C-alpha cells in the first residue's frame, strides 16, 4: 500500500511571529521555518507502517513556494521514499490544497493519506476533512491510535469527551493528533541519502486546479493584550483580591 503524506512548511512553533505594521499580514521574512509538527507525526506514522510491512512506499507532498523542498528533504531524511512539490506563488488555502491533493491522489493511487490535523500557522483544521469529502473517502480525524487491518483502519480519535474509536474502509484520509507518536530525528547518513531521493515538481495548472483563494484576509492585527497584573505576597492576599477587587469568588 502506498501512503501519501502532505507536509506543510510553516514558521517554527518556537518562533514568535511579528505582525506587519500596515496590518496587511504576518511578517515571516527571515524566520526559522520547519515542517508543521503534526505533519512530522504523520510522516513518522507512515514510516512505522512501512517498517511493519503495512506500507510499501511513502510519498511526501508539499505545496507552496520552491523552498517547500526543504520540508520535503526533511520528510525524505526521516524515511519517505520520494516527494512531490506543487510549486506556486499563489497563497494556498485549505480548499485549494485539498483539490490539489485530490489530483495527486488520482495520479498516485495511495491506499492511505496520512496528514496533520492542523497547520499551526492558519490553524484551519480543514484540509484532511475536505480532501476526504472531495474523494468520497472516509475520514478519521484527530487520530491518536491507528491500526491497519484487512481493508480497514481502526482509529482512536481524540475528541472533546475523551477517546472515540471508529473503523473506516480503506482507502481513507487520516489526520493525526499530537499523541500518536514521537517523531524521530533524521540521522546524518539518512540526511545524506535523502539528497539523492527524487522530488518531482508540478504546478496547479498541470494538475488542472484553480488555487485562487476564496477568503480574503483583509486585516491582521495584534490580539487584544492583557494588562500586566501584580504579584501577590501570600495566599491570604490572593484570596482577598479574588473576593474583593476581582469579585470572582
Amino acid at each position: 500500500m502506498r501512503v501519501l503524506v502532505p507536509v506543510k512548511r510553516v514558521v517554527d512553533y518556537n518562533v514568535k511571529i511579528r505582525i506587519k505594521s500596515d496590518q496587511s499580514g504576518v511578517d515571516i521574512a527571515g524566520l526559522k521555518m520547519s515542517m508543521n509538527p503534526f505533519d512530522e507525526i504523520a510522516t513518522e506514522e507512515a514510516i512505522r507502517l512501512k517498517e511493519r510491512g503495512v506500507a510499501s512506499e511513502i510519498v511526501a507532498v508539499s505545496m507552496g513556494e520552491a523552498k517547500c523542498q526543504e520540508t520535503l528533504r526533511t520528510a525524505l531524511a526521516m524515511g519517505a521514499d520520494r516527494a512531490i512539490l506543487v510549486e506556486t506563488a499563489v497563497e494556498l488555502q485549505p480548499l485549494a490544497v485539498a483539490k490539489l491533493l485530490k489530483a495527486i491522489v488520482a495520479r498516485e493511487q495511495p491506499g492511505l493519506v496520512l496528514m496533520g490535523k492542523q497547520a499551526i500557522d492558519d490553524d484551519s483544521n480543514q484540509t484532511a476533512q475536505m480532501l476526504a469529502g472531495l474523494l468520497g473517502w472516509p475520514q478519521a480525524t484527530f487520530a491518536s491510535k491507528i491500526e491497519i487491518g484487512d481493508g480497514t483502519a481502526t482509529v482512536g480519535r481524540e475528541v472533546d469527551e475523551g477517546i472515540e474509536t471508529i473503523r473506516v474502509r480503506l482507502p481513507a484520509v487520516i489526520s493525526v493528533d499530537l499523541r500518536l507518536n514521537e517523531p524521530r530525528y533524521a540521522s546524518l547518513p539518512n540526511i545524506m541519502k535523502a539528497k539523492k531521493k527524487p522530488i518531482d515538481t508540478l504546478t496547479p495548472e498541470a494538475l488542472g486546479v484553480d488555487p485562487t483563494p476564496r477568503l480574503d484576509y483583509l486585516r491582521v492585527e495584534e490580539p487584544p493584550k492583557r494588562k500586566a497584573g501584580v504579584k501577590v505576597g501570600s495566599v491570604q492576599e490572593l484570596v482577598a483580591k479574588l473576593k474583593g477587587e476581582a469579585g470572582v469568588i
Partner: protein
Amino acid sequence: MSVLVLAQHDNRALDKATLHTVAAAARLPGPVHVLVAGSDCGAVAEAAAAVEGVAKVLKVEDPAYAHPLAEDLAALLVAIAGDYDDLLAPATTFGKNVMPRVAALLDVAQVSDVVEILGPDTFKRYIYAGNALATVKSRDARRVLTVRTTSFPAAGSRNGKAEIATVAAVESTGLSSFLGREVAKRERPELTSARIVVSGGRGLGSGENFKLLEELADVLGAAVGASRAAVDAGFVPNDYQVGQTGKIVAPELYIAVGISGAIQHLAGMKDSKVIVAINKDEEAPIFQVADYGLVGDLFKIVPELTAELRRARG
C-alpha cells in the same frame, strides 16, 4: 434565505456548544434553523425548539446518525444545504470533524473558529496560536463556519416553541462505523463551560499530585484542566488539554498551576476574565498574562489556598 446550525448532542440532551452557536447564527441575516440529526433524539429536537432565536427545527432520526460520523452527517447537510446561505457548527471536535467535509462538497471555503461576526461575509478569527487576529471576508456565495463557543454568549430560552419539521434521512455512505467511546465520568463541571478552571502542568510531577488540584477545584466548584505536557506525561487524560490544539476556555477565573505559559497553552485560556498563576519560576511567561501571580512551590501554596478558601467559605 436562512441560517442552519448543526446541533451537537448525544441523542438525549442538546450540548451547550449549540446554544453558543445559535447566538452566533442570530447575528447573521435570516431566520435560524437547527438541524438535529440523531437516533431517538426527539427530546433534543424539543430542547432545540425552545432555544431563543430558533425559528425552526429540522429533525432527522435514523440509526445512521446515532453517533456523529462525518461522512453521513456531511451527506445529510449537503442534501439540505440548498435552502441555506450559512451553515454553522460549534468549533468543537464534533463541528471541526464534519463541517470542512460539508464545505468541500459545496465548494465553499470554511471559516474556522470564528470569534466575531462583522457582517454577512466578514469574520474575525485567530491565526498563529492566537498571536494574530485576522479579519477574513469570504468570496463564496454561501458560508460554512465553525464558531468558537467562548466568544458568543449562550442563547437563552424562547417564548413558546419553534416548529419541528421531520426530514428524511439520506442513505448511509457505509464508509465508517462507530466502535466506541471512552468517556471519563467526572463529578466536576465541564471544562469549556465551567465558571472557574484550575489547570495543572508539568510542575505537578505526577497524576497522583493532581489530587491537590482536584481538592482546590472542589472548594471552588471548578473544572480541572491541564497543559499538553501534563497530558503527554500521562498525568491526566487527553480531554483535559487546554490550548491551541486542545480546548479553548474562557472562564471567569483560570488558575494555572505549575504551567510555564507557552504560547500554545495561552491560545486556549488567555480570554479568561481573571488569570491566577502559581509557579516557582518568577520569570515564567505565564506571569505576563496573569492578573495575580504567586511565586513559590505549588506543593506548599495549593494546599494553603484550598484551606484558605475553605475558611473563607466558612
